[in-house]
């Protein structure tokens, strides 16, 4: 079971403000069945333009229901300008915290509120405001949204981004894009910090072996794998690198010819210009 706080369990067991308001002033729907959670938020304003009534419907886990319930309690009585200041962290704090893997539930609450306010101001009923390009196609998460969770919650890893907004949680194809966004946001944050200059240095043997492994992994293996083959690093001695072909490549003459040229070229490019590659002879 998850480590839910008593407050999360209370709001899950006894959700406040469940339902749909008839003729609401604003309506926000986010999430989808495919994503595994979805939230429909409706609110009504009073004469002083404060949120006098707010109701929700949620499809999702215990923390999704609790986050929605908490959101309605937090924004009741607020003006839209005040409500706009509510962050996903406020929702999590109200509940005494959420497990990190469940932070996306609080983000869903904040998004629904955003969409509902947008709906009140523009009449736009789109389920989700899609600004900028979609980065995670599995869960339909945009660059804008990822940038916002990274900045608001000071995230540093792809895994954290997945926990907060689900992006990257399925096929994983967008992991690199998410990493780029993190780097970009963190670059903005760090802009004023002095840039450290690293002096050039000679590789230690250990660093060299690691770099060779990395280069084989990134530059050589993918091509061999396509044909059901593989390459293994057997030994490194000075500038001499000994490798062995595996799988389908082990019996392939063409592979043997290209071995020296391709592998050597890659290792010279990425590791050191004086590398010599040899095949392991049994």
């Amino acid at each position, binding site marked *: *079971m998850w480590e839910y706080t008593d407050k999360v*369990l209370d709001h*899950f*067991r006894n*959700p406040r403000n*469940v339902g749909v308001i008839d003729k609401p002033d604003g309506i926000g*729907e986010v999430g989808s*069945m*495919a994503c*595994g*959670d*979805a*939230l*429909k938020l409706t609110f009504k304003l009073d004469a002083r333009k404060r949120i006098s009534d707010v109701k929700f*419907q*949620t*499809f*999702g*886990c*215990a*923390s*999704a*229901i609790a986050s929605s319930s908490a959101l309605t309690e937090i924004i009741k009585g607020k003006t839209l300008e005040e409500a706009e200041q509510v962050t996903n962290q406020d929702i999590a704090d109200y509940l005494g915290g959420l497990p990190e*893997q*469940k932070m996306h539930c609080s983000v869903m609450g904040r998004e629904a509120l955003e969409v509902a306010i947008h709906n009140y101001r523009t009449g736009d009923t789109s389920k989700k405001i899609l600004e900028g390009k979609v980065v995670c196609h599995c*869960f339909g998460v945009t660059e804008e949204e990822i940038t916002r969770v990274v900045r608001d919650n000071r995230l540093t890893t792809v895994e954290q981004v*997945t926990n907060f907004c*689900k992006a990257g*949680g*399925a096929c994983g194809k967008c992991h690199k894009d998410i990493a780029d966004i993190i780097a970009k946001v963190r670059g903005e944050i760090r802009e004023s910090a002095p840039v450290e200059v690293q002096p050039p240095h000679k590789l230690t043997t250990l660093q060299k072996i690691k770099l060779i492994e990395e280069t084989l992994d990134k530059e050589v293996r993918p091509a*061999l*794998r396509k044909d*059901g*083959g*593989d390459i293994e690093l057997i030994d490194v001695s000075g500038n001499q690198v000994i490798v062995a072909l*595996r*799988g*389908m*490549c082990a019996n392939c003459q063409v592979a043997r010819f290209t071995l020296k040229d391709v592998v050597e070229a890659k290792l010279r490019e990425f590791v050191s210009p004086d590398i010599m590659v040899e095949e392991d002879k049994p």
Partner: protein
Amino acid sequence: MKKVYLDNNATTAIAPEVIDAMTPFFRELWGNPSSMHAFGGQVRRHVENARRQVADLLGADQSEIIFTSCGTESDNMAIRGTMEAAAGRLNFITTRVEHPAVLEPARMLKDRGYNVIELDVDSSGQIDLGQLERALGYGPALVSVMWANNETGVMFPIGKIAEMVKAAGGIMHTDAVQAVGKLPIDLRANKVDLLSLSGHKLHAPKGIGALYVRKGTRVAPLLLGGHQEGGKRGGTENVPYIVGLGKACELAGKNISEEMTRVAAMRDRLQKGILKKCPDVRVNGDQAHRLPNTLNISFLYIEGESILYHLSDLGIAASSGSACTSGSLEPSHVIRAMGVPFIAAHGSTRFSLSRYNTDADIDYVLKSLPPVIEKLRSISPFGRT
């Protein structure tokens, strides 16, 4: 509050008879079975007796049973040990719905350049034997197909599959962790080479498992450093747990007809009752070939974790294939492989029974569950409007 445990595919209660059988091996009979003195020597025969009890349940010879620490170790040993012993001459064929203890080694083999084929399943969770036949055509293979699926209870035609694998010159492994103790298994009557089982799924404690290795099958050991288990698995024998597993297998043999009749009848009553009382549900998996104790059912428009927490508040233990319960963001790989639509996948719930359940348990669930489903649907934005 009443407590109803319907999560027996996750783990089972330890049978009191098993605990009684184990206790002396903590208090008095703590010797090392390999020792050349009476402290240890008298323990050896209890280990061998347990080996016979396990073998008897499977219709095997006791020399064909290797004790391991769990089902996962058995699966790893069967797969990695066989592939290693074959020195690269085998392909590996399995299904998309196996337990991670099989799928992860499969992915490791793939990364090392082996030909690995994962067979698809249809919407009822069954594999296509034609696809297996074609996969076997690529050359000799180790084939690992589970006897019964842990999430849906769907049983594969292991006898037939083993025939095909042997005819093609391959080696047949089956992860029978969910089947042993629930179904009659007779390894004299089929051609399975390797079979994994786990103690805690059949009322023995966690931390003990076994691998059946048919005579003449070559498997390299995973654990080196001891002559135990005929050199196939180093490490001093976990005597109390081995004795416990033996006793649990003996009990399972006696109770197997009860599993097939009384437990199956309770499961069927649970299924019928839910279908009658809750609209918008679907049963997942091939109902004609299903473990007698398992019911996997999807409640549309709501999410599994919420169902489990409400049931837990009512003293009922079940399990779900929903994304939220797995800690990942996607619903269970089994449910997805079957092509269950998202609308049903997130609300898939598994009830798995044992011989310790009673009719009163089923009555209690049938009384408690419908209001939970109704309550969650009243909160959900989906469904009937």
